[in-house]
């Protein structure tokens, strides 16, 4: 991996006056990890509609960017394409030099399993598994089990402040806590890229800001890159960069 972790904590938190983040490391970019070029997507059907065209985007290891846009502008669609869950009309998506559009479903699935983590608006924590079992899911899919898995799950739960809740059932948790479980699940297997689609859409403002800080903190702490899809400016401000999605493509906004 073309990433090198460096202790740039102070500089990082200086960028984000809102979050007093206790980061132990930050990342410095030596190369580009994700390259999206000329991505065009439209939905077929009785009333075909173009969602976006000519989207370009680059993401370096350790980058944490926000994608903003109005509702219906295609933010989720873009994330689905990057995750290999939907196919583009045109354009290319390269992750670490691998062209995703050329891969078949099994290869894409394996790629997601190893290198990606997901956080959803509606949490999607399995109701009949304990919190710890939910967090362990990606590990179990990767064949990591036993004490190694237990240790990583415990570490993750501690990271998101749920050390005591490992044996709880999801229905005993609040929405904010559920999203923390989801964050732990997204990062437990050490993915390169975390995709979060409106992760605070179902939360109140205060809880949302806590979850956003935690998400950033954990992404950085685990040396991953992240894309946060949101329509909220406040949320977007927790990222390193902000991109605006329009019909014409992605445009970088300058932080005010």
């Amino acid at each position, binding site marked *: 991996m073309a990433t090198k972790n460096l202790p740039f904590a102070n500089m990082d938190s200086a960028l984000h006056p809102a979050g007093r983040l206790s980061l132990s490391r930050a990342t410095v970019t030596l190369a580009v990890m994700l390259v999206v070029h000329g991505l065009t997507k439209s939905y077929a059907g009785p009333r075909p509609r173009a969602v976006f065209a000519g989207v370009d985007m680059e993401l370096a290891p350790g980058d944490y960017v926000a994608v903003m846009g109005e509702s219906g502008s295609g933010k*989720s669609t873009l994330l*689905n394409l990057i*995750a290999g*869950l*939907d196919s583009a009309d045109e354009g290319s998506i390269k992750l670490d030099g691998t062209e995703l559009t050329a891969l078949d*479903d*099994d290869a894409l*699935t*394996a790629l*997601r*399993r*190893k290198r*990606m*983590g*997901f956080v*959803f*608006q*509606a949490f*999607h*924590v*399995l*109701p*009949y*598994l304990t919190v710890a*079992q939910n967090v362990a*899911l*990606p590990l*179990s*899919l*990767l*064949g990591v*089990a036993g004490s190694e898995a237990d240790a990583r799950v415990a570490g993750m739960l501690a990271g998101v402040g749920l050390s005591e809740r490992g044996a709880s*059932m*999801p*229905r005993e948790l609040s929405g904010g806590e559920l999203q923390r479980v989801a964050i732990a*699940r997204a990062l437990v297997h050490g993915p390169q890229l975390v995709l979060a*689609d409106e992760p605070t859409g179902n939360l109140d403002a205060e809880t949302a800001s806590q979850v956003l800080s935690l998400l950033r903190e954990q992404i950085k702490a685990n040396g991953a890159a992240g894309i946060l899809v949101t329509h909220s400016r406040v949320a977007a401000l927790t990222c390193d960069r902000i991109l605006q999605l329009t019909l014409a493509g992605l445009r970088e906004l300058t932080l005010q």
Partner: protein
Amino acid sequence: MHKAKVYALQVVLAGSLAQNKARSVLSVLAIALGVALGYAVQLITGAAVNELALGVQFLSGDADLQVRGPRSGFDEAIYPKLARLREVAAASPVVELDAKLADRSDTLKIIGIDVFRAAAVQPGLVADSADRLDHLRSDTLFVSPAAARSLGVDVGGSLSFQVALRAVTLRVAGLATADAHQRFAVTDIAGAQENFDRLGRITRVDLRLKAGVDVDAFRDRLQAELPAGLAVQRPEAGVKASESLSRSYRVNLNILALVALFTGGLLVFSTQALAVVRRRAQFALLRVLGVTRRQLVMWLMAEGALVGIAGSTLGLAGGFFLAQAAVRIIGADFGAGYFRDLAPTLTPAPLPLALFFFLGVVIAMLGSLAPALEAARAPPAPALKAGDDERAFARLRPSWPGLVTIAAGAIASFAPPIAGLPLFGYGAIALLLIGTLMLMPRLAVLMLSIVPTPRGAPSRLALLQLRGAPGQAAVSLAAIVASVSLMVSMAIMVASFRISLDAWLERVLPADVYVRASAAGDTAYMTVDDQARIAALPGVRRAEFLREQQLLLDPSRPRVVLLARTIDAANLTRQLQLVSAQMTPAPGAPPPVWVNEAMVDLYGFVLGSVVEIPIAGKPTAFTVAGVWRDYARPQGAIAIERERYIALTGDRSATNAALWLAPGAAVEQVSRAIDSDIPGGSRLEIAAPGEIREFSLKAFDRTFAVTYALELAAVVIGLFGLSSSFGALVLARRREFGMLRHIGMTRRQIGAMLATEGATVTGIGLVAGFGLGWLISLVLVQVVNRQSFHWGMELSVPWAPLTGSALLVLALSTITALASGRHAMSARAVLAVKEDW
């Protein structure tokens, strides 16, 4: 109710029925199938019994009382004594017999009457005829229209009957008046006596009493004066007696059909329970909007009623056509041989129609009751949250009610029959079934905790999820547990019966060749000369003869069979399959008889008891020296030494013979010799034991064919239930699959997860169903069969077919689970994970 609220309810509920179209249709079909089976069975057996009663009513005319006795008749000298009694207005002697037709395997009921006497008692039997003297001629008979049709004769034609081994031909002088379905022929009583070797004997006297005579008081007085073996009773009592032979069989069929209906109810329960769980949030919303608990329950019950009404309507129509097809194809007794002479018309009566309609609706509503109550009880707030579904099932969990129900079932199985029916036995089966279903959540938890957690991620996840939500698994299981247990218990019962029957046949058929005078009817027999000729045939080393008679021991029951046969007391077990110890009467004690198991159950003829049996009009004491197994005569049978029988009755005729061949002699050779050397020998039926065995087992399989069909119906309904539950659960979990696909599970892995879930759940259902089925089979064999048909059998489990069916059910349900998953894994569904809940 507030208008807006009603509207909200309608939107939610109608929407759900429409949304679950496939499942609603399945529920309707399951109820329809149960109603159709139940109604068809009721329609057919009801019509047959009704026909039987009408027949007796018609044939006995205006008689107030009937004097009956042994099947072969009694001394006619009793008739003038009865006719002279002060209370009797008119008496009519009757010779009634089933005559064997000479050149076909059929029989025809012959009623010999004295026209002048009959005119006063059974006017309906006296036919119109151009030549009034035909009524008195001994060589004529009047056939009923149905008999004429089925035998293909017309007035002026003739019919040949077998008497002993001779043929007797009678001319058809006219048609007897009778309604469309009764097959019989009327002839002059003297002619009947002469033609059918009944000289000096009659089988019945019908009495019409003078006005004002107390029928029952007179009946009791007369009974006390009648010779042994004769009984006087109202004509209706005869209907009951002939009905009672088939009653247990009919009740058994009805119960089986009800089980199919019950399984349909369980399907409604599973469907509704899962549908309600999935709509918890919607209901909570309604409750928040101000719908009361009662209103919610009523609406959900209305849903069940709707399913029930549709199912019942469909089922009644289907049942009617099913019954018509069944009567045409396999006969009114489903091939069991109880109503061979009847061709009933099926007329839908309002009462059974209403009853089965009601049953279908009630069962469907009961199926929705528990889920409806649960939906109403749920506190609205937590129900609005995901993952709360399992709470809906938590209520089903305490185990004591289930255990108590099972214990009650066990106790009920020890109770005696009621009115000759194993009602407590059926009750025991129902209790065992319901108790087990109540325990299912517990059993599911227990079994899931025993199953080791697999290593592979998909199956591991499947098991973890099932352990987290055992209640849902248990609900989907209700229908499959019920139907599997039914299948298993019936299979064990039928296999036990068949194996025991086979062993019995082997035991009771030790000779090389069996000969009988005819397969049916009372008129064929072998005379002393015939017997001597048969015994002297070349190739015959030894011949034993048997005379079969039918005695009336209890006028409210069918006649019992008396078998007068060569009995070698020293070698008894070679001839009879004894199920008791064998005893020799003490010196001075009455001589021995050996009775079948039914005699013990019905008449209390226990081993060692001294009993009185009316033979030749005289009560004779005997000692019960042994009890034997008998699958042929559930009405009761008594074996007596032939020499003793001859000494008592002077009757040396025989109906059956068993022949042992000389070394080197072949069955065919003896059979040819009988044909050529014995006058009328071609009318004898000759069979090797192998043929009889094969024939009997075929008849057995035919009788149980309808049982298999009902069993299959129950299993199909159970599988429907399972697949519908899976479908519902999978649909409810679409977003879960979407999430799993996101985090890197392949389609195949999700398929494997679903297959594991399906197989595990079904496996639990099979384990529970097999255990319960085995218990139920014990009740069927030891209680239901014993009390219904009075036959004992050894329990044997048909492992191979049962294992095969279990694997088939497992495979089908796994495939079902996979198939439901396919739908849920479409690309659209995967992206659905981004939708709001």
